[in-house]
Structures are given as C-alpha cells and as structure tokens.
C-alpha cells in the first residue's frame, strides 16, 4: 500500500493537516476576538473630552487621508513630525487610537507570556508574573517614585552630558527590575539544574520579599500623588498612552511573540514532562531558560508601557485552551487574539466606566477592570467545564 497510493494521499493529507491546524475552534477564537477588539476600539474612539458624534468619530477612523498617508504612519511608528490633518482625525488618530493599539499589544504580550509560563512550569496557576517579574518591577517602581524621586541621571554623551530625570525612565526601570527579579529567581532555583516546582517556589520567595519591601516603601511616600501614581503603575494603567508607547513596546512584542510562535513545538514537547522531553533529545534546561526569557521579555515589554496588569496572563491562556485544546501551535495563536480582546474590552471599562457609572471624569487603572471582567468569565467557564484548568 506504500508507494503509488502515497503520492495521491499526500495531497489529501497535506490539506487535512492545514485545515486541521486552522481548526474551526481556532477560527472562532480569532474572529470572536477580532470582533471584540474592533467593537472596543470603535467605542474608545467615539467618546472623550473632545465631543464629536459617533459617525464623525468613525469617519475619522476611516479617514483615507490618514490611512493612506505614509507620512502619518511615519509619525506614528517612527516618531517623526506629524503631518497636518483635520482636528477630528488628529484627536482620534493621535490620542484615542494609540491607546487601543497599546492595549492590544499589552494583551498579546501578557497572554502569550502566561501561556509560555504555564507550559514551562507545567502549572496551571502560572502567570507572566509567577517567576517574580511583577514584584521586581513593582519594587523598582516604588524605588524610583519614592526614593529616587527628582534624582537625575547624567549620561556622558557625544556632545557633553545628557541629564535625564530618573522618573522619566520609570518604564525602562520597571522592565529591568522585572528581568532582574527573574534572574534572581532562576539563580535561587538552580541546583544541578532546576525543576518546575523549584522555580515556582523560588518565585514565591522572591515575590514575598520584594512585595514586603514594596509595601514598606509606601510608608515613605509623603505625597498622595506619588501613592496614586505608584498604585496606577503597580495595578496597570493605560491612561495617557500615546504612539510613543506603541513605539516602545512594538519591537519587543514582535521579537518575543515571533519567538513564541516558532517555539510552539518545543512547548508541546515540554508538556510531555521533563523526562520524556529529555529522552527525545531536548536539552530541557536550555530550552526552559530560553522560553522563560522570551516570556519575561514579553511581560517586561508590557510592564514598560502599562505597568503590572494582572490576571490577563493567567486567564486568557485558559480561555483559549478551553476552546482550541492544549496544542501550543494553536494556543499561542489564539492568545495573540484573545489577549487583545480582553485587554481592549477592559480598557473601555477603565476609561469610560467611571463616567458612565458615576458621571465623573476619572479613570480607573485597567488592571482593576481586567480582574472585574475576567474573573466572572473565568468563573463561568470553570463552572461550565469540568476539565477547566488542566494544561
């Protein structure tokens, strides 16, 4: 039955494989998520301090003068001079839309990062912050805002010295703090190699110590403004983000998520357990560290623009897994879409919720809303599905 029929069945089997990979369930995740992102985005651009009608706002989104203007894109993505455009287009494109874009990018990063950590630690409770990233970032945020507030950093530069206020570098420091904490966790867990349990325990230890230090630092904050700003950073907020944040996060996102997509098969093999992975010839320690580093990079990128947004990285992988199964080639792709969906929807609530509910102008940190939206949905899934939570 081998040779002749092989060629004929080959075409069929190739088609079956492609169709199988892009299974109906993945399509439903992708399309559903895109719909949520688009709807959330349209709501976000329609409301704000500068009042315009919904048709006006949507007209501005689809303003061909902007969409097909390379100069405008250059301004958005590379930070060059903004070309002249209508006021409405300017408001929508320059103030309201970037926030949606940042939310989507942050959602992707967190969801994929969480998915990776769940495989690497083989722990269904893993999130991007399980290996100490959030506590490291949080501690640095507090240090910068409280201890080094007003301090300047002098960087010897080509034409003299560049002075930078440290607080303007807060996002960078937050990301670096997260990465350093991750390295500390790894160093603590390492003893002739690591194991998922050792890593998680080390993450808990480092997290506890850093969180205590962080909470302790709140006592030294003498200004309510500093405290609020610290809370905004440590719960995650998208208030005031701009194309500049898009420019900050985009390159890292592309690198980290690109690596995540191509590493999906390694993640699948890791799910078979260390012993099997190793007997299949995988260098488990190396792969585990590399994948963790990719996940930490994605988490750090999101921290740099939005602070520590909780919950997204924990629940989105579960939501997607619930629909597409635990094959990481599908799961990672699903997370690329479902993460933005949750994040954009939550940000609608964060930005507009206060004015709808209380008629006030204030905005909530988005991290609060992700919990409020994600928690009940997660609960619903958990009650509905028996196998929920299994990796």
């Amino acid at each position: 039955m081998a040779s002749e029929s092989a060629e004929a069945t080959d075409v069929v089997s190739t088609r079956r494989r492609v169709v199988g990979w892009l299974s109906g369930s993945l399509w439903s995740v992708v399309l559903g998520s895109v719909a949520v992102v688009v709807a959330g985005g349209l709501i976000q651009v329609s409301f704000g301090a500068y009042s315009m009608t919904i048709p006006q706002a949507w007209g501005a989104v689809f303003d061909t003068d902007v969409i097909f203007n390379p100069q405008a894109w250059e301004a958005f993505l590379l930070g060059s001079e903004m070309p002249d455009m209508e006021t409405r287009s300017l408001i929508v494109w320059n103030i309201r839309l970037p926030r949606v874009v940042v939310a989507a990018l942050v959602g992707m990063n967190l969801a994929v990062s969480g998915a990776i950590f769940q495989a690497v630690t083989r722990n269904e409770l893993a999130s991007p912050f399980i290996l100490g990233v959030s506590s490291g970032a949080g501690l640095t945020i507090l240090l910068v805002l409280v201890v080094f507030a007003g301090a300047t950093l002098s960087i010897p530069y080509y034409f003299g010295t560049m002075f930078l206020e440290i607080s303007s570098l807060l996002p960078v420091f937050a990301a670096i703090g997260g990465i350093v904490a991750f390295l500390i966790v790894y160093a603590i867990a390492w003893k002739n190699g690591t194991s998922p349990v050792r890593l998680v325990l080390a993450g808990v230890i480092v997290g506890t110590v850093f969180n205590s230090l962080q909470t302790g630092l709140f006592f030294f904050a003498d200004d309510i403004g500093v405290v609020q700003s610290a809370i905004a950073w440590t719960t995650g907020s998208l208030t005031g983000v701009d194309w500049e944040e898009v420019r900050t996060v985009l390159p890292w996102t592309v690198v980290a998520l690109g690596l995540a997509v191509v590493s999906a098969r390694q993640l699948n093999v890791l799910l078979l357990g260390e012993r099997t992975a190793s007997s299949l010839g995988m260098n488990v320690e190396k792969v585990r560290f590399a994948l963790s580093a990719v996940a930490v990079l994605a988490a750090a990128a999101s921290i740099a623009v939005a602070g520590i947004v909780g919950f997204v990285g924990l629940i989105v992988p579960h939501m997607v897994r619930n629909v597409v199964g635990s094959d990481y080639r599908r799961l990672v792709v699903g997370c690329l879409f479902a993460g933005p969906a949750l994040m954009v929807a939550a940000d609608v609530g964060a930005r507009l919720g206060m004015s709808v509910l209380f008629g006030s102008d204030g905005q909530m940190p988005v991290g609060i809303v992700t919990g409020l939206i994600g928690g009940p949905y997660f609960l619903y899934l958990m009650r509905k599905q028996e196998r929920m939570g299994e990796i």
Partner: protein
Amino acid sequence: MTDDANARSDGGLGGMVEREDSSESEPPADGEGSAGDDETDAERAATASEFEGEDLVIGYPTGDGPVVDGESIRVAPGEVTALVGPNGSGKSTLLKGLADQLSLTAGTVRLDGRDVHAMDTKELARKLGLLSQENVSPDSITVEKLVAHGRYPHRGFFDPLTDEDRAAIDRAIDLAGVDHLRDREVGQLSGGQKQLVWIAMVLAQDTDVLLLDEPTTFLDLHHQLEVMEIVETLRDEGDITIVVVLHDIDQAARYADRMVALEDGSVYASGPPEEVVTEDLLADVFEVEASVGKAEWGPDIRPERPLHDDSAAE
C-alpha cells in the same frame, strides 16, 4: 549475593562471544544455533547496534551513595535483554544511566563504540529511545500528534514534518497496533491503550537501541501481552537492540533472549533465561521459594511462598 555459581559481574560476556562470531554467516531466522530458544540470526547482529555499559556507578544527586555500584552490562546487538530484580534493586536506575538521563558517577556507556555522555542530546535520541515508567501528556492531544513528537530528535528547530517523518509515524502506529485510535484524544484512552500509544511514540523515534522501563506494569493481561508482542515483533525484525525492565520474571524468561538479574544494585546473574532463572536465584534475589520446571518456551516458574530473612539464609 553469596552465590557464585552463576556468571556475574563480567556483565555476561561469556556466551555472547560465540554469537558475535557466528554473525558472519548469512541465513537468518532458521535458528542456526543449537542452544534452545537462544537463536541469534546473523542479520540482526550485523545491522543492530552494539550497546554496553562499563563499570557503571550511578546514583541520584540527592540520595546517599550510589544505587548501582560498579557494574558492567553488555547488550548483544539485535537481542532482547531483560533486566529483572525486586523493587529497589536498581533496574530503573541502571536503565536511566544507560540512557544518559542520570549522570554517571563513574564508568562509561558506549553505543557502537561511542561514549553516549559525550554525544549531543539530539544525536543520542536518534539512536537511543527510552520509554519511562510513567508518562504524562495533555489530555486533549490526539494519538497521532503524540506519536509525531517521537520525531523530535530528527527535526531541526524550524523543520516541518517531512515525508520520511510521516512514514516513520505511520509505521510506528502500525507496529504498535493503535491505528484505530489515531484520531482519538489520549485523555480518553484506557491505561493499556495509552501505553501502546507511548510505545508508538518511542518507535517513531526510529532508534537502534530501545530501552523500556517496566512497560507492562499496571497493565491488564491483554495489554501486557500486546506490549510483549510488539517487543517480539521488533526482535524478529531484527535491527533494533532492546533492553527492557520487567517486573514479571516469568514474562522476562519467556520473551527475552538474555536476562540480567539485579540485586541491590549489582548484577547477580546474567545469561540466557534458562541459565539465569534458577530456584537459587529466586530464593536469593526475589526471596521466594519456587520451583523451576522446563517448558517449551523456557523455564517455567511456579512461585510457592515468600521466604523470610531467617529462612532465606542457608
């Protein structure tokens, strides 16, 4: 351990030498040898890999002292070698050491003359497959996809499945007799079916040497026999060298070409089943009183009662 009647600690080199010499002659299958069911066909030995461990000292990083202490084992190419011994005798440890899954405190493991610990992990995994005692997988993975993971060592980071990979997967699924389960999710299978699927996965690895760690433990009788039938088929195909840890000495005696009996981390006896399985061995190593008869398939073991320490000493 005090019984020196059986060949020991030479890793059973005796009795093997002639077999290798005779491997020059051509005709297979017809049982050119004379020594009972201990037939070795020439082709097997010619194409299969040579696999040996020398002066192995193996222990766990956390444990005190080595579990296997200074033992040598040599596995004849193309044959089925069974490691037997009571719980805690070091069978699995020895197997893990042989498979480079535990680092050796001392000694070397050679595959076709090359030190396996010096080999690249993927290169080794193309030549040597190991099926662990317990395996975990996501419940929602399909049988076919799980088996496909067996091709891991043959694929580069970006390589898609090639035709060769797919052929190997089909062959492995076929050999393990799980074709009817192909599209089922592993989580829905029974323990016995799962084990067959895992065996298919290591078969897809397409290695010269296959190490199986208690593949029949916890299975019902039907699946135990299914597993041993696969081992038998592989042996008859002849280009693969198999080392299998078996809990059931009866099964080992029946299916293995050679047996290695371990006690407290040392080789108590090794050789063809009819030489290894004796009443003395059952008393000394397994602490049971048993009678060993002779059946057409080899030694016939009838366990009678457990021996307690005081009565075991004679």
